[in-house]
């Protein structure tokens, strides 16, 4: 017996591309099949049965039919529309940044259940949390874990010596911490303070409930962001486009006190 023609999938919609007048190609992330592309016919028509169920930043139950090239979404039902994300500019920007990271780091048809769980949890944390910077950094760190890019933070990745409590370095190319001696020889390495290293080590092994209790001063939050985004940029070999929008919102006074404290 061949594979069934129709199947159901819980999915987070991570991207949409409009084709023609009323159709969309969706990029969705599912627990069983990983990232997929599917066609949502007529989704842009007012009154479409798919409509809001297949918008980015929505967790939906989809019925899909196997197509020759792309599968086709035939039915949909919203499981969680994340209204708190969609009604707050800063939270929405954080959510879109998370979606872009998932889209950039994953390939199609590659199941990764921990990544799906992390994605869904992170969108929920964004809805509940007042400090979304913590959610973003925690997500970035654990995204790298799920993808096999977990940074080595315990010993120097070059000389294997224990890390002393002084200013050390983060080697993007080496994928982890460099001791103060080895780091000075690598001009591309980013300096990392003892406090930020401690936070990274803690967040790497703890759950989110513990991670969110950490209160970071704005300088440390900025350093943490620079280290994580530097590593992500190195891995992707390009800028994450949504960062520019997050920066723009932070710079203006529009974020109503959200963002980095």
């Amino acid at each position, binding site marked *: 017996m061949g594979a069934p023609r129709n199947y159901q999938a819980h999915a987070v919609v991570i991207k949409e591309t409009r084709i023609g007048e009323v159709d969309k190609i969706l990029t969705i992330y599912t627990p069983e099949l990983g990232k997929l592309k599917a066609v949502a016919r007529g989704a842009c028509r007012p009154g479409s049965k798919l409509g*809001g169920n297949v918008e980015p930043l929505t967790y939906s139950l989809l019925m899909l039919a196997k197509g020759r090239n792309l599968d086709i979404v035939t039915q949909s039902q919203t499981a969680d529309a994340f209204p708190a994300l*969609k009604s707050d500019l800063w939270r929405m920007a954080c959510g879109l940044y998370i979606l872009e990271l998932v889209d950039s780091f994953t390939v199609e048809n590659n199941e990764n259940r921990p990544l799906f769980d992390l994605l869904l949890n992170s969108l929920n944390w964004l809805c509940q949390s007042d400090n979304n910077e913590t959610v973003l950094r925690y997500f970035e760190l654990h995204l790298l874990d799920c993808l096999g890019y977990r940074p080595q933070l315990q010993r120097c990745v070059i000389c294997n010596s224990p890390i002393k409590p002084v200013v050390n370095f983060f080697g993007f190319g080496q994928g982890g911490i460099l001791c103060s001696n080895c780091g000075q020889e690598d001009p591309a390495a980013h300096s990392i303070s003892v406090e930020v290293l401690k936070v990274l080590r803690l967040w790497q092994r703890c759950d989110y409930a513990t991670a969110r209790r950490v209160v970071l001063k704005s300088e440390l939050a900025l350093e943490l962001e620079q280290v994580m985004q530097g590593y992500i940029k190195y891995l992707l070999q390009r800028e994450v486009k949504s960062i520019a929008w997050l920066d723009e919102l932070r710079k203006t006074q529009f974020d109503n006190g959200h963002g980095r404290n």
Partner: protein
Amino acid sequence: MATTEPVAKLVEAFSKLPGIGPKGAQRLTYYLLRSPVEEARALAEAVLALREKIRLCSVCFNITDCDPCLICQDKERDHSKICVVERPSDIPPLEQTGKYSGVYHVLHGTISPAQGIGSRELKMKELLLRLQDGQVTEVILATNPNVEGEATAMYLRQMIQPLEIRVSRLARGLPFGADLEYADAMTLRQAIEDRQEF
């Protein structure tokens, strides 16, 4: 098969248009070849006029062949209300309703972080300039009710708030002819929140 140069050139030009493949381009070319010469000339002139005469209105950034556009020139219209839309093609359906007599402002896109489009890529600064003279009393945000349209509307609301101008958003809810059973959660939520006396 060798094709004569003018035919090949037109096929190539047509196939660059969105939604037209090589076969479709060929069909259009041969149709024009068979049609009266006046029809072909009218089409060529219309295409040329489109590029030569059409420009953006310096006030509202709608497409126009005169500057300011006819809507901005019209003294009968209510210039204290500005309806902000994403694209020039959003204006005709609003005009067809016959319910709006204010003026417009075209943003030429929406905020789209994943495509690197922020406020600077849109006509937002120009909108802010229009609001400085104190003549405008209401800005109606008519961006599409999707994630990017919402982000744009929320950004505009926060941008306009300090000017103490009324900001309104087109009502969201169930479209005419829709089926309640199949409505998505966000739409139903909006429909319940924004319900009206009947």
